[in-house]
C-alpha cells in the first residue's frame, strides 16, 4: 500500500469492504453489489463529514452505471470545485472505474483524453489484488483524493485554473 500518504491509507482501511463480485450485467447480483457500494459510500461520507474533510458529491443514474457529481479542493483558503463523472465498466469490479474531470480536460498532463485522470502505477495492482472487496468509495479515496491534492495546487500556481470568485471578480470588477 505504498504510494499513498498515511492519512489516505488509514482512511481507506476504515471504509467497509465489499463482498459481492458482480457487474452491471449481473442482474440481481448487481443490485446486491450496488447496495454494498452505497453502504461503503455512506460510511466514507460519514467519516469525511466527521473529519471535516467533505470533498465530493455524487449521485448514480437509475441502473447505477453512470455516476455524476462534483468534487472540490481547498487551497489557500479558496475552494476549487470541479464536475466529476464516471461510468461503471462492464467488467466491473475487475476493472476500476475511470474517474473524469471534464473541466480540466487538456489542462494537465496527468489526464487522459476526455478528462480521465491518470492514477499512480500503484493503483491498478492494488485494485486487482483487492477485487471484489474495493468499491467506488475506495476508488475515490485512493484515486481522486490524492490526485486533487497533488494537481490542484500545481494547476493554481501555474495559473491554469482560477478561482471562480476571482474569475467573477476580475470579470465583473473593472
Amino acid at each position, binding site marked *: 500500500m505504498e504510494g499513498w500518504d498515511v492519512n489516505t491509507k488509514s482512511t481507506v482501511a476504515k471504509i467497509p469492504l465489499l463482498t459481492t463480485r458482480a457487474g452491471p450485467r449481473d442482474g440481481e447480483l448487481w*443490485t446486491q453489489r*450496488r447496495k454494498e457500494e*452505497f453502504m461503503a459510500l*455512506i460510511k466514507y*461520507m460519514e467519516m469525511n*463529514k466527521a473529519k471535516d474533510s467533505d470533498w465530493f*458529491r455524487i449521485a448514480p443514474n437509475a441502473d447505477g452505471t453512470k455516476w455524476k457529481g462534483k468534487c472540490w479542493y481547498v487551497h489557500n483558503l479558496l475552494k476549487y470545485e470541479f464536475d466529476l463523472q464516471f461510468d461503471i465498466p462492464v467488467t466491473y469490479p475487475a476493472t476500476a472505474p475511470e474517474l473524469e474531470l471534464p473541466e480540466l480536460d487538456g489542462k494537465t498532463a496527468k489526464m487522459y483524453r476526455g478528462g480521465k485522470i491518470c492514477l499512480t502505477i500503484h493503483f491498478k495492482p492494488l485494485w486487482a489484488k483487492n477485487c471484489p472487496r474495493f468499491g467506488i468509495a475506495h476508488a475515490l479515496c485512493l484515486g481522486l483524493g490524492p490526485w486533487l491534492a497533488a494537481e490542484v495546487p500545481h494547476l493554481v500556481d501555474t495559473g491554469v485554473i482560477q478561482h471562480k470568485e476571482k474569475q467573477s471578480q476580475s470579470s465583473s470588477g473593472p
Partner: protein
Amino acid sequence: MDAELQELQRLFEQAQEAKPSVRLSDRNVVELVSKLQELHLLDADLLHTVSGKEYITQERLKEEIEGEVCRLGRVSLVDLAATLGVELIHCERQAQQIVGNNTDLSLVQGEILAATYWDSVAEEINETLQEAGQISVGELARQFNVGAELLTGVLGSRLGTLIQGKLEGGQLYTPTFVARIRAMVRGAVRALIIPTPLSTLWMSLQNQLREGDDGGGVGGVTGDGGLFQTILNQLIADGEVTGSLRGGNAMWTPAVFVVAQRESVEAFFSQNGYITYDALRKLTVPQPKQYLQAKYVDGIPLETVFVHSSIVSQLDAAAEEAIATNTWFDALPLLPPSFGISDVAKLVSLCPSVQRALKEGVAVILAETCMLSNTLIRSIIEKFENQARELAQKKSVIIANVTKDAEDHSGTPPVGTELDADDGGDTTQGKNARRKKGSHGVGANKPMLETDLVSGKGGKGKKRGPKNKHAISGLAGELGISAPKSTKTSLSSKGGIAASEDDDIFSHEDLAAKILEWYPDMDTAGTGDEGILVRTLAERLRPIVVSAWLDAKHAIFSAQAEERRRRVDSLQLKIDEVYANFQLFAKALDLFLGEKSTEVILHRHLLRTTGAEIADLFLTAQAMEQKLEEGGDAETAQDSSESLSTSQRLSLAKSLPGKNLSTKAVEMVESLEGKSVDAFDNALEAVVKESGLRLKKLDKKAERALLFAYRKGLASQVEDETDPVALLPKVVALLFVQVHSRALQAPGRAMAAAVTRLKGAVPEESFTTLVEYHSMTVQLLSLQAAANPEEEECTSDRALTKREVLESRMPKLKALVLSSSPAAAISFDNEKQ
C-alpha cells in the same frame, strides 16, 4: 428497483447532505486567538499551560489556586504549578496576589498556608503534647516540615487557646510538666549547699527525668536546660530559693554557702588577725584579695596573705625593741607559719619603726625577714676585724715557720719544696700537683680539700701541728696554699695574686660559723634554709672583714719591710765600715810589695782578720734575713757576732737563698782561705752585689777621715796599753800610720818585716828603740812558747824579767809614738798638700 437499494441511495444522499462538523486545526486556533487579541476582543494576559496546548486566563488560574488551597490548606507552589500545568512564575505571581488579598493565607517559603491549616496543626500538636508532656519545637517543625521559627511564631499565637502548654526554649511543655520540673529544680537547688555549676545540676536533673520518663514511655528530654534556667530564675524571683547566680548565670551559689563562707572568714580573721588567700580559695572565694579588701578596709593585702594591722603593730613592737637594745629580730617566728617569706619581708618593711630605723640608718634588713641593728653589725665587724688582725699576725709567723720546716725537710730550693710538701713528698706527681695548684690557686675550696687529704703525712701535719695552735680551724686548711704564695709574693711585691689568695680567707662559711659561735640563736633565723640570716650577714660582712684582713696584712707586711730595710741599712753600714777598714788595710799591703814571704803572711793575716769579719758579717746577716723572712723571730736569729769556723761559713753560704747568691757566697768563703786579698775582694764584691747591697770604694776624703780615726783610736789604745807584747804591733801600726799614712795590720810573724820597713822613716833613736823592743818581745814570746811543764819555774821567771824590762820600756815606746804623732800627722798632711 429494489426498495432496499433505494433506501440506501436515499441514505447516501442524506449522508451527503448532512452538515459536516467543523474542525479547526491548532494552528488555525492559534491564529484565531492571536487575531482576537489583535482585535482586543480578549485580555492581553492570557496564559499558556505548560504543555503549550491550552490557554488559561488569570482569573481561571486564581480560581484554581484558591480551590487547591481551600482543599488542602497548605499548598506548595511547585506542586501547584505541576498540578495546574501552569508555569511556576505565573503561579507565584498569582499566589502573591491571592495571599495579599486574603489575610488568612500566608506565603511562606514557596508554600501557601491557610490559617485553618495552622489551626489543625495546632490541634494535632496539642493532642501530642497532652500525651507526652513536652515536645521539642524543632521536632515538630521537622514533623510538619516547616521552619522552627515559623512554627514557634504560629504556636505562640495559639498558646493557651488551642494548645494547652508553655513554650520555653524551643520546647513545648504542659503546665503539669512545668510544675513537675519546677518542683524538681526547687528541690535540687534547695539541697545544694556549695556553689555548683548549673550545667552539672541540669545534667543530673535530666538524667532523673529520663529515668522517670522511661516508665511513661515518653522519650522527650528537655533541651539545653533553658527551662531549668527560667524556672530557677522564677524561683529566685519568687524567693522560694535563696542564693545567687554567678559567672554569667553559670554557677549557683547558695545563700547558705555565702553566709557560711563569710562567717568562717570572719571567724578566722578576727581570731588570728590574718587569713591566707589559699584558705579563701579553699572556701571558693574567687578573688580573695579583692574580697578581703572590700570587706576589711584597714587590712593589709600581701602576696599570699591578708593581715590585720594589729600584726604589723605586733611586729613593730618587736622591731622597736630590737633597735632599742641594739640586737636583732627575725619576723618569721613572730608570724604564723603560713606566711610566705616575701609577705613577711613586706610586713617587716611596713613596720613604722623599721621604716624609721632604715631611714635613719640604724638598722638593716637581712635575709628578707630579719632586722639587725647597725650597732650589732658594727660590733660583729669589730670582732672580725680584731680577729683578722690577729690572724694576719699569726699567719705571717706561721708562714715563716712553714717555709723553714719545708726547707729542713729537703735540700731543694724553697718553692719546689713547699709544693712537694703539699703532696706529701710524692715526687712523681710533683709536677702535676704544681700545675694543679697553679690552676686552683684562684679557686676557693678545692686546695683546702686536697690539703685535707694529705694532711696526715708529710710536712703538712707538722706545719699545722704545734705552730699554728691558735689559728682558727677554717684558716688552717688554707695555710698550706697561702703560705708559699705569700713568701713568693712578699719577695717581689704585693700584687693581684695576694688579693685572690685572700679570697679564700674568711670564706662565707667561716664567717657564718663564727657569727653562729657568737650568736647561736641566729641559726634558726630566716626562712627556708638553715642559717640564711647568718649566711647573708656573712656575705654582707665579708668584704669588710676581708678588707680589714688585707689592711692588717699590709700593715704587718710594711712593718716587716721597714724592719728589713733597717736591718739592711745597718748591715750596709757595718759592711761599709768594715770594708773601709779592709780597704785601708789592704792598701797598707802595697808597702810590702815585693817581699814575698812577708806579703803572703800579711795577705793571709788580713784575710783571716778583717776579711773574715766582713764575710761573717755578711753571711750571718743574710742568714738572719732569710730567717726573718721565713718568719723566724728576729731575736733568735740575732745571734752574737762571734767569728765562725770555715765549715760554718760554708754551710751558711750554701744555705743562702738563691743559687747565684749561694754559689758566690761559697766562692767568697773559699777565697777567704786563699792568699790573695784581691781575689777575696772580687768575690766579696760579687756576692755583696748579688745580695742587693753594695761595697763602697774609699775616696780620698773618707780614707783620710778613716785613717785619722784609726790613728786616734790606735793612739789612745797605745796610751792605754799595759801589755808590753800587745803594745808593739800597735805602736808599729801607729808608726806606719804616721810615717806611711797606711794602716798596717800585721801578725807577729810579719812584725820584724814591718819594723825593718820603718827603718829610715823614723828617727834613728826611735828606730833602735823599736828594734830593741821588738827583739825583746820576740824573745819573751819565744820564751813563753818554749815553756814546758818541767822548766816552768825558770822560764816563767825569765819571761817575767823580760816582761818587766819590756814594761819598763813601754813608756819610752809610747812616747815615741804619742809625742811625734801630731807633728807627724801634720807633717804628713803638709807633705800631702
